């Protein structure tokens, strides 16, 4: 083996083209190695004079974090699934091996220049020295540039397999209390590694705030107060996200805590929070307001005039608690919660449903759910039975769980896995399908291990066309990891080890999910119940629980979840606990401090009635009757579930009123499918549509009272109590009486009054 002489030979004015960096190479020159292959002859053109800098940056530990921090591997840039301008990086760096390949080997000589590191396209692009869609990301003076340059200069080496992986991050401080706007606080982010080492990664982390009108955070982790309130700033590094709570206090002038009584732990935990934020709770709601709120929340309809009078005339001190207990035992409560679960579980039936979602199957499913609610079955047992059910969809109600959770012509394990997780844990695990969850702790390993619980779920035709048997085929292979196609055996979220092969994975899933120790489950259920009763979840949206979407009152959510677990997942107990708290019974009327509070439950929130509850309410107050296609006479809206003459694999509410008022079409698992935002078409429908006037005609409320000779003042009062659950104020009474005038037998004026009440905001809202 000969080393070729340098060149140009005869007339070279300077050192040869095989140029050596003597200055850089000082101290540690790698011996040139002549590699001789067994069957080949190595001809080395040049001998590398390696540079051993103090420390060669590591690709995973140092270089990839620069891509993360500079945004190179973000979704809008090279992290997009197909890359950008021909160059792809894995989103937020989930695939280090692939990123290394694409940088160093996909197009050798294009992206990195190991001969002249400064001329590497990677560096020229990042510093904006050549046209770059992403512009200039950092300058040559930054540590980011130096890291990349040194890595390239060292030959762009790959990491040893022994490189310790990061295991988590911490943010310091983890709570920030600002006593006024314009204060600032520097935060630092520290990463922990598998070998026990720690490292300050503030300069490599990304920062964000959940509410920039309360506090903002800059790229260096400096948090600045903006306006009063509470929010979370969070930092991301590698696959980890961590938050720090920020509270910006209003001026302390004249804030004195009125020391209201606390009925139970809910009140105490909310009060703590309110005091911290210098908020004052609103007053206790009066009996009329409480009565209407409770009836609507627990039975899905307002009290009848008789129920109103019974409660208002009750002089007992504990009459509110008594009423809660009474309504918890009502059929309305069972119907309403059957309806809420039916919506979550997407009960729908079709007359031509070739995939096992026939009306008959849906009926069986509905009746089974109702039975569980009626008998107050512990929610964890209820869910566990759903998950593990097998057999005929026509005889075993819960067997419909897997065919109705996702209405589709075929059972797709990924869809089941995603919807299951979102429903029962509030975790949107599907974000981890293509990359590690960017704003939570879930990894692709978690995702594919989770999907494997559902790969064996199958259905086969039974004895008749409507009948399907649901079963779990244990022989089906587990899901494969996206990056390296490893089989990923079924593993619970956050679990370290897979379910043993000899166990039924669904049984293991049910045991893990519904265990009192599983906070994912108890927090999710507690939060959903709270959201139904208080108008807003402690985590909102209720089905998006993640590190970067923390609860507005974490101790309260923890306590509610604990309470639920401690009481054996007793739904009625939790509802009773919430409804008997003073917080639930507060007025919606704001005070000087809490007018803008929508997160801390210092006052009741105004809530537009759900579509089905609104329809039942209209029917109840008018003594009317509303028929639903394909349902027997007398069916309430909250007892109705969508039935279709065709199949069920599409969005459908089953009634045009529901369409207008935003009842969930039961096509996706998203909680936001139930819409309660007021719209113009809703207003127009109540004004001129067929619902209000038709029901008024049906019920003949006014005609009957006129016939019975009820005096006009009493009719007015009855109409107010019916629609608004309160007596008219004296001014209202006088005005209405004035409208009626002398002809007190004229039905039309009463109808106009009734119609106006039915169209009032006060009627459409729960308050």
């Amino acid at each position: 083996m000969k080393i070729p002489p340098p060149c140009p030979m005869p007339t070279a004015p300077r050192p040869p083209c095989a140029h050596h960096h003597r200055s850089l190479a000082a101290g540690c020159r790698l011996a040139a190695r002549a590699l001789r292959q067994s069957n080949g002859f190595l001809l080395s053109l040049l001998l590398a004079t390696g540079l051993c800098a103090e420390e060669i940056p590591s690709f995973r530990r140092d270089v990839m974090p620069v891509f993360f921090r500079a945004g190179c591997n973000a979704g809008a840039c090279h992290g997009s699934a197909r890359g950008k301008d021909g160059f792809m990086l894995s989103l937020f760096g989930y695939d280090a091996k692939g990123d290394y390949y694409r940088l160093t080997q996909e197009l050798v000589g294009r992206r990195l220049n190991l001969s002249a590191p400064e001329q590497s396209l990677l560096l020229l692009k990042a510093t904006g020295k050549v046209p770059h869609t992403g512009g200039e990301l950092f300058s040559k003076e930054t540590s980011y540039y130096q890291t990349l340059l040194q890595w390239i200069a060292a030959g762009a080496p790959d990491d040893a397999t022994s490189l310790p992986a990061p295991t988590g991050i911490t943010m310091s401080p983890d709570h920030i209390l600002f006593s006024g706007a314009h204060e600032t606080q520097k935060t630092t982010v520290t990463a922990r590694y598998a070998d026990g080492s720690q490292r300050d990664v503030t300069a490599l982390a990304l920062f964000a705030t959940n509410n920039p009108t309360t506090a903002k955070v800059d790229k260096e982790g400096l948090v600045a107060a903006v306006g009063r309130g509470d929010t979370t700033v969070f930092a991301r590094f590698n696959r980890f996200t961590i938050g720090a709570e920020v509270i910006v206090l209003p001026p302390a002038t004249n804030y004195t805590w009125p020391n209201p009584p606390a009925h139970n732990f809910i009140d105490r935990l909310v009060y703590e929070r309110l005091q911290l934020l210098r908020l004052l709770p609103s007053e206790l709601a009066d009996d009329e307001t409480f009565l209407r709120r409770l009836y609507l929340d627990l039975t899905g309809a307002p009290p009848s005039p008789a129920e109103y009078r019974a409660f208002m005339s009750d002089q007992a001190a504990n009459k509110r608690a008594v009423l809660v207990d009474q309504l918890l035992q009502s059929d309305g409560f069972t119907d309403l919660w059957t309806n809420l679960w039916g919506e979550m579980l997407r009960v729908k039936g079709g007359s031509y449903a070739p995939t096992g979602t026939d009306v008959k199957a849906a009926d069986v499913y509905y009746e089974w759910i109702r039975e569980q609610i009626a008998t107050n079955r512990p929610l964890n047992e209820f869910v566990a039975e759903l998950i593990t059910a097998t057999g005929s969809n026509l005889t075993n109600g819960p067997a419909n769980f897997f065919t109705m959770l996702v209405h589709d012509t075929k059972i797709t394990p990924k869809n089941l896995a995603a919807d299951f997780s979102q429903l029962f844990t509030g975790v949107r695990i599907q974000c981890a399908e293509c990359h590690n969850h960017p704003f939570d702790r879930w990894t692709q390993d978690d995702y594919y291990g989770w999907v494997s619980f559902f790969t064996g779920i199958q259905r086969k035709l039974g004895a008749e066309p409507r009948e399907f048997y649901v079963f779990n085929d244990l022989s089906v292979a587990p899901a494969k990891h996206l990056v390296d196609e490893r089989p990923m055996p079924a593993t619970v979220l956050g679990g370290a080890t897979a379910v043993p092969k000899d166990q039924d994975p669904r049984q293991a899933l049910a045991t893990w999910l519904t265990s009192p120790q599983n906070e994912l489950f108890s927090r999710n259920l507690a939060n959903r119940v709270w959201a139904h009763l208080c108008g807003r979840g402690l985590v909102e949206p209720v089905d998006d629980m993640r590190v970067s979407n923390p609860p507005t009152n974490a101790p309260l959510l923890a306590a509610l979840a604990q309470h639920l677990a401690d009481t054996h997942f007793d739904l009625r107990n939790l509802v009773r606990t919430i409804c008997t708290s003073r917080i639930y019974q507060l007025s919606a009327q704001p005070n000087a401090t809490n007018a803008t509070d929508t997160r801390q439950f210092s006052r009741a929130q105004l809530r537009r009635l759900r579509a089905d509850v609104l329809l039942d309410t209209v029917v109840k107050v008018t003594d009317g009757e509303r028929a639903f296609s394909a349902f027997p006479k007398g069916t309430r809206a909250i007892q109705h579930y969508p039935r279709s003459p065709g199949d069920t694999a599409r969005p459908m509410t089953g009634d045009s009123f529901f369409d207008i008022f935003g009842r969930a079409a039961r096509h996706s698992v998203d909680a936001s499918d139930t819409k309660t935002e007021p719209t113009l078409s809703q207003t127009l429908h109540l004004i001129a549509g067929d619902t209000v006037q038709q029901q008024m005609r049906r019920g003949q409320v006014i005609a009957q009272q006129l016939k019975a000779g009820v005096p006009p003042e009493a009719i007015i009062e009855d109409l107010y109590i019916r629609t608004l659950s309160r007596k008219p104020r004296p001014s209202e009474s006088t005005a209405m009486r004035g409208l009626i005038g002398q002809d007190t037998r004229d039905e039309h004026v009463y109808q106009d009054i009734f119609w106006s009440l039915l169209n009032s905001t006060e009627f459409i809202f729960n308050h």
Partner: protein
Amino acid sequence: MTPRRPSQLNRLSAFLILLAPTFTSAAEITYAEHIKPIFREHCLKCHGEDQAKADLNLETFATALKGGSGGAVLIAGRASQSLLFNAITAADENERMPQKKSPLPAAQIEIIRQWIQSGLRESPASSSLVVARDTRFKPAPIPTADGPPPMPGPLPAFTPAPERRPLAVIAMAASPRAPLLAVAGHEQVRLIHASTQALIGCLAFPEGQPNVIRFSRDGGVLMVAGGKPVHSGSVILFDVRTGRRLTRIGDETDAILAADLSPDQELVALGGSGKTVKVYGTTDGRIRYKITKHTDWVTAIAFSPDGTKLASADRAGGLYLWDPSAGGILLALAEHKAAVRALAWRSDGRMLASAGEDGLLIWWDAHDGWPAINHPNAHPPLRPSGYFGKLANGVLALAFGPEGELLSAGRDQHVRLWNVAGQAVKSFATSPRIPLQAAITHDGAGLLAGDEAGSIRQWTRAD
């Protein structure tokens, strides 16, 4: 040398036997005996005598061959281009046949594939519809030599750009007439004696990185194309004997990734990230025409030895033959599914070889664009233990030798020599490095590969 690998053909037939134990060879698969039962089971309800949706009737051999309203659905010898095969193997379930049903079992798909590949035979008595291709090499006359084989004399001196370490061998060429090798370096080209491996000298290329190096057919001119990424690109023609620059062509905004000099030295074709092939005249440096059909970066360009065809390929797998006089399209060669990395013409002009990141190595019959030889996995990927996923098994470089033999270099860290029948006859390991370039010396004796670390390895045909 490493233990000789079984030839690709042997392995392929072993594969077939495993998949379809009832058949001893693909040639025995016939419509009557094997295919019609499959059609009957899955297809004839919609594509039979009764319905014939899209006018496609698979119930008889003749109507199946005729195809449907969209034309033929079966092309003998080319499953990949047969609509029927693509329909039953479509990844998108909305496009896949049979509609709204599970795909055909893999074993049946394989039988259909073999039936198409082996020539759509109707019955055991009928013959294959695939016409046997003559891949034999017919030596072309050596270009009229003006004097002795060109070797460099004294070269112009220059101050080389500093090199931290050798540039990866991103371009390399062997002179077709002389024991001379030209190899890419950072802002320069090294000229090396192919027999002694001695460095003869260097040519300055301050334009940037040389991404393509080609000798003219007479060995007297060296074409170097390249530039600075996303900054500038051009092509320089050097006089091999004196090292003088003859001309500079192109003024691009990105480094040139693909280029070639026409055999008569009248034209230079170049391309790159602009997705356009530009053809320039060498005498006046003016652009003659542009080809804008490519949908992705142009990755390889090659004139045929007689100058009657121009081949160009892109990063999306597009491959076309053009008329070099005006740029009109001659043929679209559809087979590659990923970036084409290399194109090479056999010196008799009858075969064009292409290879790419999809692992395909294809000898195209230049006359009609038929893939006469198609190796789907010419450089099977290395599979370290514990690694399950898809691995790139790209073929990165090709070079024909004087007797029609082909040298290929791939990401599997091997260089392979193929005979004119498309059989692998030699295999050389370059591990742990990937060979980026391949070359065969003018006398056919030396086999060369340049790797990512800047090293060149040489073997002889006797190794």
